[in-house]
């Protein structure tokens, strides 16, 4: 078989596995990606993994998609990135589609409704935990705290469109970094 085609197929299979076996998504996926692509397949190096994390953090979209596209492109060009991305998406797409139908059928059962009443309170704790780890990773400093507080107030109380807040914060970060750089130069 054509060597490139073989790699494209391998990429699809590998990322299908990664998509199938990571729960929670996001950073939970990184260790498995590292194991499969660096240790098993030797497609990329540990340095590449660090690069991928850095890129994934500063580009939009889910980390799983970002890293699948990036690794796929590195290993086998455009079609590699298509295969890897398709592979990582397919398991969760299929599973959720199946669950959606089941969920709609079972939602009317009393026990299921009670279960979800409990679950809703528990899930909030999981989101709180995610919020806490994002807070720890965010830059510390006056500008950063002001942005956190303002974006919270704008959306929670003033009901300003989330998209506007994101664009506003991106501009604030850009402008404040330019101002800081000028100060350092002087």
């Amino acid at each position, binding site marked *: 078989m054509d060597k490139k085609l073989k790699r494209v197929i391998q990429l699809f299979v590998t990322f299908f596995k990664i998509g199938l*076996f*990571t*729960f*929670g*998504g996001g*950073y939970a*996926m990184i260790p498995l990606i590292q194991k499969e692509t660096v240790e098993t397949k030797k497609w990329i190096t540990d340095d590449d993994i660090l690069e991928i994390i*850095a890129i*994934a953090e500063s*580009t*939009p*979209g*889910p*980390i*799983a*998609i*970002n890293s699948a*596209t*990036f690794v796929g492109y590195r290993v086998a060009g*455009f079609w590699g*990135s298509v295969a890897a991305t398709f592979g*990582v*998406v397919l*398991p*969760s797409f299929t599973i*959720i*589609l199946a669950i959606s139908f089941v969920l*709609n059928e079972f939602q009317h059962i*009393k*026990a299921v409704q*009670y*279960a*979800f*009443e*409990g*679950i*809703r*309170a*528990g*899930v*909030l*704790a*999981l*989101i709180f935990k995610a*919020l*806490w780890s994002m*807070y720890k990773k965010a*830059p510390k400093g006056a500008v*950063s*705290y002001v942005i956190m*507080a*303002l*974006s*919270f107030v704008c*959306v929670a109380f003033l009901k300003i469109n989330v998209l506007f*807040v*994101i664009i506003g914060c*991106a501009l604030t*970060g850009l402008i*404040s970094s330019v101002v800081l750089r000028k100060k350092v130069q002087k």
Partner: protein
Amino acid sequence: MIYLELFLTFLEIGAFTFGGGYAMLPLIREAVLLHGWIEEEALINFIAVSESTPGPFAINIATYVGNQVGGVFGSICATLGVVLPSFVIILIVAKCYEKFKESKTVKGIMSGLKPAVVGLIGAALFSLLLTVFFPAGVSFAPLATAGFWVSVGIFAAALLCAFKKVHPILIILGSAAIGIAQGYLL
């Protein structure tokens, strides 16, 4: 046309969320509520489902909302929409990685976006808390019901477990069990 609307809405969500996991929650919450696609309670229920199934949250929620609104083809449109921006952007970045890595503009923008994500998830969590604990609007009335305090208890216990690194699926199962017990006993 609903399919185009699903595709474009999730395209926007995919293009404007930075950082993985729940970074997408604020935009998704706003979009589904604004379009009236699913209710806030159903959204929280689904977060629990997403935590207990493999794959990234972004793909899971896109597939679910797509299916609820427009069936299987709807879920394809939504998933494609949420994946496409990061796919295209990573392809571009992979080609000129060195320039991207050193870019002061990108660093500046990220210094504004990282704290913004914290504030935005905080705002989403705030509104979800209100929905779960005060489903009929904020008042003192629920404080006299046992259900309210059971929910608070589940939230507190789940929070403790989450920070003790108990697996999310166990937390969800535990919350479900307490929910069922409460439903039949109280």
